[in-house]
């Protein structure tokens, strides 16, 4: 079954932009997805704390659909890549769970909460 994943990579900020794009293409090539991979380049930013000696990193966010069985190899290649300071792969959860409550439901909920208070 194919699922939607979201991956955040932190690359070494010293890398050229072209080198980062090459690396992304290489890692994403292992996924074997036909659908397009949505990339969001945040670019270089200050890290909230030092990782090793590094104080800045190049952030990239990728969203893609992939089969679960291709993930171990993809993750292995990320792990072995020294220019990737950190990565985080998550199942995209935005659409999971119950649908959001509508305004009316929220209003009704608030009303019942108030009623409970009166009884106290």
């Amino acid at each position, binding site marked *: 079954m194919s699922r939607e994943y979201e991956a955040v990579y*932190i690359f070494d900020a010293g890398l050229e932009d072209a080198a980062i794009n090459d690396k992304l293409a290489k890692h994403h090539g292992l996924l074997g997805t036909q659908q397009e991979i949505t990339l969001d380049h945040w670019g270089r930013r200050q890290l*909230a*704390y030092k*990782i090793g000696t590094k104080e800045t990193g190049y952030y990239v966010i990728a969203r893609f659909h992939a089969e679960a069985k291709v993930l171990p190899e993809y993750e292995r290649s990320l792990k072995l890549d020294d220019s990737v300071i*950190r990565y985080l792969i*998550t199942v995209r959860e935005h659409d999971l769970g119950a649908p959001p409550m509508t305004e009316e439901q929220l209003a009704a909920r608030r009303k019942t909460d108030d009623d409970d208070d009166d009884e106290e």
Partner: protein
Amino acid sequence: MRRQKKTCPITEAGIRYVDYKDERFLARFITDNGKILPSRLSGVDARHQRQLAVAIKKARYLALLPYNRGHQA
């Protein structure tokens, strides 16, 4: 006297899913030292507090938020 009922700031903002990448938003729910703010102080409801805790931990791993502040090595 009736105690003012706190409303959840995340529900109020109409947020369904707490995003770990939005560190500006998450920063509102950590203390100056970087601890997760308890829901009794922030008024966040239980469901959102659970999401928030996981999101803050992910953001810390990605160096978007500090694990602690005022303890630079």
